[in-house]
């Protein structure tokens, strides 16, 4: 302990017990040899240079720039002035919320409540195309139907047309005043009397004061019975 003579200059330190106050667990040194041998064995079988983990080539050359970019991006994202922000304390409760969500979904059942028929998604693309693009193509093509499917339709249409035209002509004829006059009873009866006979009759039997009612009053309906009687008398006199 000759080296401890320096302690005489330091009274406070000299009063402290110079023994090492630190201890080790019981039996530590008994197991130390085995532990160190095991450690050496592990170190030799799995050298530190071949720990199985590698980094891409030039990883550390680009690491500084990558970290700086990441810092810039996160600073931009977390800056509320840029519109990207999360509520205060969001990340504090995030893990708990996710765990709760997982728990709830597991409690509700592993299978999803919503399902689709088997092979639905295999046919989905085709079905969508059929209802959109392909349908428009079909609409554009259209279905051309012939108006005259058979030859008889043409003849029937011609007959109808002829019937309509004939009916029109007929109705026009029978309502024509000339036709109506030609087919009237007076016209038929007077047609058999010559013009000379009519002139002679008018010269002999009719004067200005003749009160004989006219055979035909303008605007009055024709009385065929009176007219026939009057003409009967005329014919009788004329034959005599």
């Amino acid at each position: 302990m000759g080296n401890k003579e320096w302690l005489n200059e330091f009274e406070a330190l000299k009063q402290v017990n110079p023994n090492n106050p630190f201890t080790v667990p019981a039996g530590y040194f008994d197991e130390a040899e085995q532990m160190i041998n095991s450690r050496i064995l592990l170190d030799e079988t799995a050298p530190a240079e071949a720990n199985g983990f590698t980094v891409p080539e030039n990883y550390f050359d680009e690491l500084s720039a990558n970290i700086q970019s990441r810092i810039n991006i996160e600073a931009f994202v977390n800056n509320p002035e840029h519109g990207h922000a999360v509520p205060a304390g969001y990340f504090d409760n995030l893990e708990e919320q996710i765990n709760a969500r997982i728990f709830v979904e597991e409690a509700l059942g592993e299978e999803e409540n919503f399902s689709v028929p088997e092979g639905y998604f295999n046919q989905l693309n085709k079905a969508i195309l059929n209802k959109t693009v392909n349908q428009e193509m079909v609409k554009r093509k259209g279905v051309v139907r012939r108006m005259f499917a058979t030859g008889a339709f043409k003849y029937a249409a011609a007959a109808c047309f002829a019937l309509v035209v004939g009916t029109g002509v007929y109705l026009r004829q029978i309502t024509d005043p000339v036709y109506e006059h030609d087919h009237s009873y007076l016209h038929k009866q007077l047609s058999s009397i010559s013009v000379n006979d009519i002139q002679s009759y008018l010269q002999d039997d009719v004067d200005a004061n003749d009160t004989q009612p006219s055979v035909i009053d303008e605007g009055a309906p024709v009385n065929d019975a009176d007219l026939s009687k009057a003409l009967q008398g005329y014919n009788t006199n004329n034959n005599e």
Partner: protein
Amino acid sequence: MVIDHDDSDDISQDVFVKVWKNLAGFRNDAQLYTWMYRIATNECITFLNKKKAKNNISLDEVDYSLADTLADSTYFDGDKAQRKLQEAILTLPDKQRLVFNMKYYDDMKYEEISDAVGTSVGALKASFHLAVKKIEAFLLSKD
């Protein structure tokens, strides 16, 4: 140096593994145990630097962390004065703490410490003297 028993256990195993692997390169110009000391001190310093980098704290904060570890340690069997001495040692820089521990607890000569830490004897004496004065002041200032 690292206070926590588990950390000490890991470091001591690493030291023995390195000794085993580099035993063939050991030069006989130094004693074996000083060579092992050198490996051990390097491992301790490397561990503390890693701890600092991992927790992103300074070496001084590492000392505070070590003080907390000391307070909670179940493998500390010293009395009140010894605990206070450990707290005083933890206020030292790593190099001074290393030299003090080797001199105070391991009773090593300056030449042996010089071989272990790769520092000249004169520098070690100055470093040790500063360390002891700080510890003395710490022990006297706080009860």
